């Protein structure tokens, strides 16, 4: 890994985003405005949701805001790299980048770094705006929360690497990002706790990394539970992160080799 190359690619992404000044400002305002209807809708259905979310914070507004933060981050981790490679393959930029001595890993992290960081910051802004509207965050548990957020990001970045591998090798991501986002949204506990999911589909929820991550995140950040209390979810999330990132990295490397063998790496 080359931190310098990664930083340079992230800086280029940041500079590009800044060059669209109006879009940049509008997206920031839209993010802050979005929290207002979220607040009122959450308050309206609070009595309905309170019993279901009792084990993961008592206020639905806080529950939903943390869920949306994680969901935003997951969406970016899964889709940023395949999207970047699809676009950069078509423009020839990917060919230009891989012609340099920077390793494949640095290229992947560098190309996807800015959109992921941006999503993380947007999500954090959302949570902070929520805090201003009354979400009680346990700030003392921030280090544990950061660890859980990092593990959620790593696990889903592994899936993103697999989707990117399919793009490099076959010019398609086979809808992996969409499938993961749909599954995570419906069964990962973003809008409602996984405990309310019907039993016939609850088994699928067991293989959704976000379900473990979000449960652990809410327990620490909203309920103030320590790491020992979320050890079970954290352990499973860590296993997911290790396996998915390892498989993703292998798939990505194999796809580059395949594309070099097939001569498709610089076809656009």
């Amino acid at each position: 890994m080359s931190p310098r190359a990664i930083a340079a690619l992230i800086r280029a992404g940041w500079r590009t985003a800044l060059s669209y000044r109006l879009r940049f400002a509008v997206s920031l305002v839209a993010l802050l405005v979005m929290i207002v209807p979220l607040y009122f809708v959450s308050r309206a259905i609070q009595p309905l949701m309170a019993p279901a979310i009792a084990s993961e914070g008592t206020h639905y507004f806080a529950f939903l805001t943390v869920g949306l933060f994680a969901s935003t981050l997951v969406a970016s981790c899964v889709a940023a790299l395949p999207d970047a490679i699809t676009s950069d393959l078509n423009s020839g930029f990917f060919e230009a980048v891989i012609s340099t001595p920077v390793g494949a890993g640095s290229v992947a992290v560098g190309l996807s770094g800015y959109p992921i960081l941006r999503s993380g910051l947007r999500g954090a802004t959302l949570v902070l705006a929520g805090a201003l509207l009354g979400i009680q965050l346990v700030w003392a548990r921030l280090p544990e929360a950061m660890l859980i957020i990092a593990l959620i990001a790593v696990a889903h970045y592994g899936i993103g690497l697999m989707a990117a591998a399919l793009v490099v090798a076959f010019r398609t991501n086979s809808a992996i990002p969409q499938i993961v986002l749909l599954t995570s949204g419906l069964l990962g506990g973003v809008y409602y706790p996984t405990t309310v999911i019907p039993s016939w589909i609850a088994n699928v929820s067991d293989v959704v990394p976000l379900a473990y991550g979000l449960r652990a995140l809410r327990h620490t950040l909203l309920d103030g539970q320590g790491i020992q209390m979320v050890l079970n979810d954290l352990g499973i999330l860590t296993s997911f992160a290790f396996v998915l990132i390892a498989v993703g990295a292998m798939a990505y490397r194999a796809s580059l080799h395949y594309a070099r063998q097939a001569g498709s790496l610089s076809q656009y």
Partner: protein
Amino acid sequence: MSSAASVHPGSLLVSVRALTKRFRVRRSWREVARHPLTRALQTSVDAVTFDVQAGEFFGLLGPNGAGKTTLLKVLATFILPDEGEVRIDGYDVRREPDAVRARVAPVIANERSLYWRLTARENLELFAHLWRVPSNEVPQRIAEALDVVGLTDTRRKMVGQFSSGMLQRLLIARALLPQPRVLLLDEPTRSLDPVSAREFRRFLREELTSRRNCAVIIATHNADEALELCTRVGVMNAGKLLAIGTARDLVQRVGDDRYVAWTQTPDHPALRGFGRTEIPATEESVRSGWTPVSVRAVGGERASADILAELVQAGVPISRFERANVSLAELIEAVIRTAPENGGGHNGAAEKGRQ
């Protein structure tokens, strides 16, 4: 990054030995159903062998689909070879690709391969970091590269506002940042106007090969590039390297038995005896009343002198008698036609692999 400045002129930088690359051919579903286990392969580069030395400009000529671009992509490590050996400055492209990438800079001709919302300077800064240019040298290298391609004044302009020629020069500047030992160019003047193209060729010759001592390999369809720029050229067709030599040598070899006689009686019977062929009328020939016709003189200068004497003796009025110019297209056609694979016996083919 290994700088080209430390390379001695004439030292071997690119060594290609029996390079072969085949690609799978996409088959129809019906074909796959009929023969599920067979694989259709197309040979894109076929046992190609050549060397390029420091300070040398090597041109790859040939029709579309000849294998020129595939060959350049193998040298740039974008494509893995199936057979043979390719070494850049002693490093094997298959086993030591990172070391090769640190020495080779392909000029990616696609203008979209730049960040259009960034300035020229910001684009170069990004690639300077990717090329591992030492941090303290980055500003100087960028300034030098921009200066060399004449973009210093527009360094703060957004790349999306550049003209095609400026983009082309910026792509070259990007490739120069790491001070490569080997530069790979695929039709570099494709989108340049004639004046810019000539200026660009002058820059390539003076700056890259003479001053920086780079080895430059260029795939081109442009006669000026091949004839003025290249120390040697190789003619490829159907994946094979059919001939290697200086462009002038090859042109002379192909066209050495063809002469142009300017006459007022182009249909004179004496001309027919020497394989007379018509040459399209030019503005000059129409204006002057003297028509150029092509005749064959097998046997070099002596034979041409004999033919001229015979024609004059036969009463053919001749104002000029000169060796015919051979265009790049004619050169390529002639090399392909006379290659041993096509039943010919061109001398150039015998040179294959010798360099």
